[in-house]
């Protein structure tokens, strides 16, 4: 299956809710490795609203982390975002580029993927920021925590001082200035005021003795404390969208609850939108307003929490929800989803629904690429990439259970 045709039907931002702050359309990210092309993210659509928590849930290898990285252009080679639009609402930015790049601007929305690279990078910090899974390996071990947070503060400060020339921040700090700053004590990138703000932020995230701890190094913090510090760093730029990639996975269960509560409190206080990436349905249930379910690089179902948890349409979502043990009515055995996740190698992914080989309700319709449908007619939010949104399951059209075994044997002979 080769690259999908570019979605060029309608220029401008996709439709959505007036409160949207982020609208992603047809985002695709590919990795070009020695073993072949890996389609990590495949035509992903979703929206994030102002002040909400949007969850992306999926197993490992489903592409959720890569999606997050693709939003802020942090995909390293051999990977690349190959297509798609990321519409971000920022009136000032829209005004700035309205004349220069008319196709990239639609009302208050700007397609960041069409912006010059420097400008896109400048959005990191003030517009988007990210919290990573393992805080200990996400901070520089030889620079104090306070200094690193102060850097994030400074990024924001300088961005605000130059609203119309966001490019200037990415240039002009070369080796020469580094030596000068190293030799002259007061001329660092950060300043005393950014350090003070960093200490304030540490206090905000609940770290005791913030003034002292700011001068300590990451290895002197516990895991939970360090994750709080990372959250402080992510919020330093006062971002519109905070992306949290498995923020609690590396932490103890008791600490997890604390961190999640912290995130929720901060998010409400500052009205930041959060994209919460996790494989833990409990976290989703606890934190999120709307959810997207990812499988094999695609979003297979998305909607409000109630839509996805109470009335899932896609059999994968059903399987996920069904795999949660129910204390009131425990089955003697859990109900796993049969089979394994696909490899995402381009040559092995057939032009069909990627879940069909594991799906208990697979039908002949599923042997073609499946677009996204509205789950209920006229539904604003709930969308699903499954033919079951259009028709009922019927045994008559069901695929035989060994259909894919045979196909793979045939392919093996080539």
């Amino acid at each position: 299956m080769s690259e999908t045709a570019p979605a060029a039907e309608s220029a401008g931002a996709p439709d959505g809710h007036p409160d949207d702050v982020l609208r992603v359309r047809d985002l695709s990210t590919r990795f070009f490795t020695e073993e072949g092309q890996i389609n990590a993210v495949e035509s992903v659509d979703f929206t994030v609203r102002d002040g909400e928590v949007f969850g992306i849930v999926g197993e490992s290898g489903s592409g959720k982390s890569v999606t997050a990285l693709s939003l802020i252009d942090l995909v390293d080679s051999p990977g690349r975002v190959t297509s798609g639009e990321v519409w971000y609402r920022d009136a000032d930015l829209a005004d700035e580029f309205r004349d220069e790049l008319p196709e990239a601007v639609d009302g208050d929305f700007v397609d960041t993927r069409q912006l010059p690279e420097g400008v896109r990078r400048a959005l990191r910090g003030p517009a988007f920021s990210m919290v990573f899974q393992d805080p200990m390996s996400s901070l520089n071990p030889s620079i104090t925590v306070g200094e690193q947070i102060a850097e994030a503060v400074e990024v924001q400060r300088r961005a605000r001082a130059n609203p119309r020339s966001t490019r200037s921040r990415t240039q002009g700090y070369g080796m020469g200035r580094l030596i000068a700053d190293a030799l002259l004590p007061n001329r660092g990138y950060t300043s005393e005021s950014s350090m003070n703000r960093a200490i304030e932020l540490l206090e905000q995230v609940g770290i005791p003795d913030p003034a002292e701890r700011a001068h300590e190094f990451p290895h002197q913090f516990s895991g939970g404390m360090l994750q709080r510090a990372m959250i402080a760093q992510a919020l330093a730029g006062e971002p519109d969208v905070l992306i949290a990639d498995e923020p609690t996975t590396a932490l103890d269960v008791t600490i997890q609850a604390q961190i999640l509560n912290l995130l929720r409190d901060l998010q409400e206080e500052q009205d930041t939108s959060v994209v919460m990436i996790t494989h833990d349905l409990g976290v989703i249930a606890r934190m999120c307003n709307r959810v997207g379910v990812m499988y094999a690089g695609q979003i297979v179902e998305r909607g409000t929490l109630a839509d996805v948890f109470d009335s899932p349409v896609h059999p994968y979502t059903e399987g996920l929800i069904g795999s949660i043990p129910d204390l009131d009515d425990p089955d003697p055995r859990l109900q796993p989803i049969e089979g394994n996740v696909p490899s995402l190698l381009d040559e092995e992914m057939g032009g069909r629904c990627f879940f069909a080989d594991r799906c208990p309700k697979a039908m002949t319709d599923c042997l073609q690429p499946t677009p996204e449908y509205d789950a209920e007619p006229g539904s604003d939010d709930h969308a699903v990439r499954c033919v079951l949104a259009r028709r009922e399951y019927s045994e008559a059209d069901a695929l035989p259970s060994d259909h894919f075994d045979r196909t793979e044997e045939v392919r093996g002979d080539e």
Partner: protein
Amino acid sequence: MGYGRFLLKRGVQGVGVVWGVVTVVFILRFITPGSPIDTVAPLDASQETRQRIAEELGLNQPLYIQYLDYLWELLQGNMGYSYISSIPASVQVFQKLPATLELAVAASIVAVVISIPLGVISATRRHEPADYAATSFSLLGISTPNFWLGIMLVLVFAVEFNVFPTSGRAYGFMDSLAAITGPEPFFTVVTAWIASLVLPAITLGTYFTALITRLVRSGMLDELSAGYVRATRAKGLPESLVRYKHVLRNTLVPVVTVLGLQLGTLIGGAVITEAVFAWPGLGSEIIRAINARDWPILQGSLIVIGTGFVLLNIVVDALYAYLDPRVIAE
């Protein structure tokens, strides 16, 4: 533990090592063939003359007494007198030291100033022409014997093009300072000084430039794939800051380690460079003393070099601890 206490601990260890050096140098005289008497006495000296000389030099006393005398004199700053010139050894040795220091410092500056940016460029522009050029240069640099490089440089710049002097040291750092107020014109003195320093400094510095470039390049390539690099970019820090303030700093840690191990090569290289350029420093002095069996000078020079070496190692440790604070906690 704290930075200060760390340095103190290293300093105390250093004293112990210096003592070891002094002892080894002392023993050296007894395990090599020949005797100091042969150096001092005229060739046709009679037995009595030789006996007298032996007594004067204190060579008839038991070993441990000679050793203790030796230590005692050293603590007072007395290294004996040159067998050849009868000048106090300490005077002669410390007179020659500044020249060697100049050479070593100049070579180090050349090496660091060129190699670090070169290594960074090479790592960040991988597989581009700049990288290939830097990698080829560094391969050549660590494979070229420095004395031959010196001779080739002399051939090209001094013999063919007559830009720099072929050998010798015209003026020194102190002369340049003196010339600010002194009789000779400052500009002439400084240019002559620098001109005579250029070729020797490049000769001594090339190996290290190449070595550091290689280390910085491979270190940065490793470091750039560390987790915090992505996180630091994610918070919007300009790329140059990511490279220089974060990645390079951590890269320099193993570089400094290896440099510490290579200090011996720097000192040895200085000895050879001095031989090539007739640079009047401690290295030339050692070779002269070896050939003439001038023990007080030889021992004095070796002790000074050994002590300097220990001091340099402490400086390297201090730098290492500054770059990687986790070291102090161990």
